[in-house]
């Protein structure tokens, strides 16, 4: 189930949402949320830093004119996540 979630994230055309993932997996959105948290805890996903990567928006002199201080949380696959997908895709040894 978690592997399937990773596959759907990797196979998505661009960003995907929890709702879309839940729909594709035939489960509730409420179940996708803890699965994502678990994948982060296990190191398969990582949370993308909010803002422009310079730290907190509150301390930025440009925050007043920045139109897109991200309101949305983002998660991306990690190297471990990609490796797990590669291993799952590889044919198992006879």
């Amino acid at each position, binding site marked *: *189930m*978690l*592997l*399937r979630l990773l596959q759907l*994230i*990797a*196979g*998505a*055309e*661009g*960003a*995907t*949402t*929890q*709702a*879309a*993932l839940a729909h594709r997996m035939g*489960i*509730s959105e*409420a*179940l996708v*949320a*803890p*699965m*994502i*948290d*678990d994948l982060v*805890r*296990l190191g*398969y*996903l990582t949370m*993308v*830093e909010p*803002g*422009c*990567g*310079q730290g907190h928006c509150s301390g*930025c002199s*440009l925050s*007043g*004119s*920045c*139109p*897109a*201080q*991200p*309101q*949305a*949380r*983002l*998660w*991306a*696959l990690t190297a471990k996540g*990609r490796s*797990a997908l590669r*291993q*799952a895709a590889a044919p198992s040894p006879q």
Partner: protein
Amino acid sequence: MARPMESTEPRAAQVGERPARGPIVALAGSPNVGKSSVFNALTGLSQHVGNWAGKTVEQKTGVCHHRGRALEIIDLPGTYSLTANSPEEQIARDYVIKERPDVVVVVVNAANLERTLYLLAELLELPAPVIVAVNMMDVAEGQGMHVEAHVLQAALGIPVVPLTATHREGLPELLAAIDGLLDGHIAFRPARPELGEGPEALIARLEGIIGAHAPTPYPRRWLALKLLEGDKEVTALLRARLPDAEWQAAEAILHDHEDAVLAIASARYEWIGRMVRAAVRRPRAGAVSLTERLDRVATHPYAGPALLIGLLGLIFWLVYHLAQPVVGLLEVAVGAGAGLARTALAGGPPWLGGLVADGILGGVGTVLTLLPILAVFFAAIAFLEDVGYLARGAFVADRFMHHLGLHGKSFLPLFLGFGCNVPAVLGSRILDSRRDRLLTTLLVPLVPCAGRMGVLVFVAGALFGSRGPLVILALLALDLAVIGLSGVLFNRLLLQGERPAFIMELPLYHLPNWRTIAIHTWQRLVQFVQRAGTVILLLSVAVWTLAALPAGAIDSSYLAAIGRGLGPLGALMGLDWRMMVALLASIVAKEQAIATLAVLTAGSAAPLAARLPQLLSPAAGLAFLVVQMLFVPCIGTLTAIRHETGSWRWTAFSVAYLAVLSFGVGIVVYQVARLFALGV
């Protein structure tokens, strides 16, 4: 404060009463399930607060008298799982394993069973009789959800009690279930998650390796399971206990099956999904949330981009219809101010009147006439941000970029570029690889910042009147195409790596907070005015000076000499030397193009918007707009590019690419427009 219990309810011990030893009931549960409410309801005032031995985590215990029994209630720390990731999780599992409570009550949230049942899945692996208390039933009902406790009980094979602890509803039933388990009247046949053949085979092999070395009182199967899950504490424990040969054998299995944890956790989630599907009835499809309904359109693969383009069109329509009339009034006011200054300074040196009227008021004043345009633009963006749409816009934009083969994460800094290119370039740091950062850094200057948008809207309005919004939309479409094609080009040359996709959590839509929108708009306008009062002011004076020296006539000035040097290039686009100088000046700040034009065309009583059609044919106007949109970014952005790439070579490449691109597209647009008789 707890109210007195009825005879069928538990009697809380009084303050100071010495707790009698009795059956131990441990309360386990995730955070935010109302576990404290259950604890308080059971124990009333007889609570003892201390710390868990050797930890700084608070320990709460209490006594509940019920039917002649003094139940000792232990409130375990709130945890989502039983892997030793935190002191809380370690305490909770150590307590259940080592202290062996007589009953463990797992409190779960009826409104969010999916998140809170995972702990139960783990607890069922431990040797403890478990009761599930489904708390917050009132919250779930309020959300239109109905949890059928008896169905959950049948599916789980263990007692399940519905509860609303804050209203003390379900407490007698909970105590009856505890009694039933203690007395052996209630069967305890848990339906544990089935982990599947693969993990079970690995667990069996590890159990065989652990053998008689399992430390007391840990169950061998549980140790093997936790080893596979990568539990650091269990790993350290077994590393110390197992002989080297056994440990190496175990380590080899763990190394070859590093991802077994995925299968184990998946089995638990499948189990949770089955339980929830069986026991929870949700609102019908007709009662889906407003956010869900709106997102069916806003994030739709086709309707989403159409909505985004439609909203951008609406913004420019609003800019024209709300802002342009005010721009006209401000231009008249600036012209009148310049006239007054010229009259007032008529008795002074001749250059002083020119400097103040044409250099300062003409330059800075004309830039300030962009304020209404930017006010509507900033307010519209702030509105979309505040109601929660902007994240959807970014989501749709990301899909567009992904289809062009661009890195998914790039859209964040590129989207920032709409405000100002400087933070957008700095924002490329969120990308993992240098190649991705470089690609994004090279694309950012193609995103029109607010200053550039102001110039485009002003010039398009002056030249094309009511058709201005259409021209701007066409320019944006061209810009998107250029970003896409540039991305593909750079991607082919610089990047052939993976393009990782990612998950985005979209915020809920909500009604706009007008105060927040007003504050954001105000802050952005203040920054714009501050720039006009500093950078734009200084450069306007410099432009006026260069246009006045050496003889006081613009046509023979130093600036004219520079501009005429660019004459052959300008001629290919129908632009005279003044337009070329305005483009060059925009490298200092994008708004400076307007200020420079105002200074260089001074002398006419008409405002700049009225003077522009005399300077530019429609074809030349289109070429100027295209070049202005794609031209080399401001010095601030170039400095950021140098800083982020750490390379003068890449900075020079960016300047050269954008210069060639902008002039190249400008020439094509001018020549094509002339074919349509727009060159007159």
